[in-house]
């Protein structure tokens, strides 16, 4: 595939620039491979995060030609041979160095969420929880999340409106959805979803769903049903009571 041109952001939060690199690219290479080659040959101290190299850990999130992506799952042959490939850090988070950003805000959001609270009913047995596959499928779908934070990066509520203290972001909305839809979870998070986690801030642009490398239907399967539950609760308390009692 020959020699290819790259522009990679080098610097920190205060100053930095796009630096030109060249790299020989062979068949099957992904963008992360090229970054590693450049690092080993020309830029020993260039920071980048990665772990699994197979789209399983969500460490290698960057923006490639302006689009948020996993560097380890983006093949070089997605780009035309004469195209210069620009690699920059995620825009919504402070830059630590080069393509590495400070994502600690996300870890703080998770801590705010009330964890799984198993109900102690007859389906909590010595052999574990009794739940049917169909009833856990939704929750499992959300639990595919690899915490790459690409969705957090593109959500305009976080990115442009700076509402980082009012909205937990799409990643944690689906964490909440996975708990709310867990057939054996007892906690009630609906008031907090409205008041603390900011479900009302999301205006369903679906940008988050578009970038999710795990194809999680963040908006349609997660956020919208949560919004509905919130609306139900505050419009029709009897409906809620009814549902709680008959919840499987």
């Amino acid at each position: 595939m020959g020699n290819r041109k790259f522009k990679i952001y080098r610097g920190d939060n205060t100053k930095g620039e796009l630096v030109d690199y060249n790299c020989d690219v062979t068949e099957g290479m992904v963008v992360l491979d090229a970054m590693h080659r450049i690092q080993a040959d020309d830029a020993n101290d260039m920071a980048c995060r990665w772990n699994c190299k197979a789209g399983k850990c969500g460490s290698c999130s960057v923006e490639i030609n302006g689009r948020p992506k996993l560097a380890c799952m983006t093949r070089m042959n997605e780009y035309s041979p004469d195209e210069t490939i620009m690699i920059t850090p995620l825009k919504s988070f402070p830059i630590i160095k080069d393509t590495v950003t400070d994502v600690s805000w996300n870890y703080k959001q998770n801590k705010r969420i009330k964890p799984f609270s198993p109900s102690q009913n007859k389906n909590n047995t010595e052999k574990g929880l009794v739940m049917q596959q169909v009833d856990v499928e939704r929750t499992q779908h959300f639990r595919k999340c690899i915490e790459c934070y690409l969705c957090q990066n593109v959500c305009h509520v976080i990115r442009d409106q700076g509402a980082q203290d009012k909205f937990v972001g799409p990643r944690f909305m689906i964490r909440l959805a996975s708990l709310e839809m867990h057939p054996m979870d007892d906690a009630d998070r609906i008031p907090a979803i409205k008041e603390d986690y900011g479900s009302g801030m999301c205006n369903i642009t679906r940008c988050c769903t578009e970038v999710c490398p795990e194809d999680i239907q963040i908006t349609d399967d997660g956020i919208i049903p949560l919004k509905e539950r919130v609306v139900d609760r505050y419009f029709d308390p009897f409906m809620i009571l009814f549902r709680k009692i008959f919840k499987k």
Partner: protein
Amino acid sequence: MLDISEIRQIEFDVLVIGAGGAGLCAAITATKESKKVGLICKSLLGKAHTVMAEGGMAASLGNVDKRDHWKIHFRDTMRGGKMLNVWRMAELHARHAADRVIELEQWGAVFDRTKEGLINQRNFGGHRYPRLAHVGDRTGLEMIRTLQDYGIHKDIDIHMECTALDILKDESGKVAGVVCMYRETGEFIIFKTKSLILATGGGGKAWEITSNSWEYTGDGYAMAYEAGAELMDLEFNQFHPTGMVWPPSVKGILVTEGVRGEGGILKNSEGKRFMFDYIPEKFKNETADTEEEAARWLAGDKDARRPPELLTRDVVARAINAEVKAGRGSKHGGAYLDIASERSAEDIKKKLPSMYHQFKVLAELDITKEPMEVGPTCHYFMGGIRVEADTTMSTVDGLFACGECAAGMHGANRLGGNSLSDLLVFGNLAGMGASKYAKELSEMPKFSDEDAKRIIRNATSILNREEGENPYLMHESLQNNMQNNVGIIRTDSELQEGIKNIENLKEKNKNVKANGSSQFNPGWHEALAMRNLLITAEAVARAAHLRTESRGAHTRDDFRDESEEWYQYNIISKKGEDGTMQVIKERRKDADPELERIANATLEDLEAEVAEERKS
């Protein structure tokens, strides 16, 4: 001049290094008994190796086949480990795995379900029954996320992207703390602690073709070794039979054994299903010998025996290797792994979604239509830090180890799925053991400032040197050396060559140089890891040279059989008085007769015994 009082210090009762399944589990357990618990990891929380595990965790829950029992899990584990496992560890694991899996579910894990609504279990190599609790092919993600989401609500002081450099001890030789460095800033910090748990995982990054990430540089082995602890069984490196072989940039990335568990078959370039030719004598009675019987087994016939593709990993890896050597390899030098002809496209996407995705993106191949190409990849360390089974304490007071960095549980070869359950069982025991030890210490052991200074100076001199060796190139030459001389099939002369090269690299490493500043500088991090990789590689190569037999994952071309004599011994590596590595044979403790009886019983007898036990 460096002044230690200017370096930040934090005190703990129990400090855990490593936030994979083992480390998280240990830290969570420790909070039950200890007040001040800390946890540090090299990458971000939730990204440790455990996240990559695919197939599942083994436990004799008996949800799919009621005949399962800890005794049969124990027997499978010992036979898989070629009887070299520490008996008591294999017993503890088999007895407690099921409880730990059920506990994980209470903490939030959502496993795939059986028709009755219980945790589903799948088949895996070497396991008599469907035994692996799983979530599609992303079980590790489920495990680490569950522990993470549960653990952040316990009182654990977590430090991410923080690298432990070396262990501090007091005058009497007890653990006193550890010197660490924040990767982001390059700032040093000293954690003082009464007990220290290593849960740092393995060292597969010493090989070129590997399923392991940059984190697996054997830091735990090297830190323990430098602190005077004993390492054991390091010659046993598991080469997983099915890593990707094409394209070159993904060489080594794992293809889960779950593919074979779900019915995938191995073929050579002639289209022959070759595993029938490689069934070892010991497993003949328990393995299907015709394609017809294997097909019945896949269809769920409980009387049919298991297909030979599900023999233990050492056997399958050697078979693929032999086929390739005989000129019957696949296009790019591996074997064909075919699930497309065995299962419907819908089933494959449902049971193996991440494999489907991985091949689609990385190899532009649709596994529901075409066979995959696979070959052996360095995967797992059975050996590691020698520990006492019930407490997980190493031979250094106050130093504990669990998970992949500890030795003994898996003997000469690990069964798939036995690692994730090992993390839960021994993570739990380590958390308890370390808490108990810390409680019994009346005061915090004191380290010497000189030791701390030396550790920091060693680290900073890599940056301060005017010129020196490029750490990336050093790492590449170590990987070539291990791949070529200390690989899957070993010989005396190659091992000697390997050791010689490691000695040369050690010399060069004294002069390793990283450019740039101390802030998030991967070149510096790579250079710091070189010492650990070299200690690990040396211990592997020397132990492999000493063990003149083939057993489990350790295969010597010049000593092709298991030897009765070597069955009696472990190999221990330890830092000698003169600073060089001492590698010695040490006689194993006698087995508990009851455990020995169970391990050597025939399957029929054991099944009958278990059935009888259940009746009464």
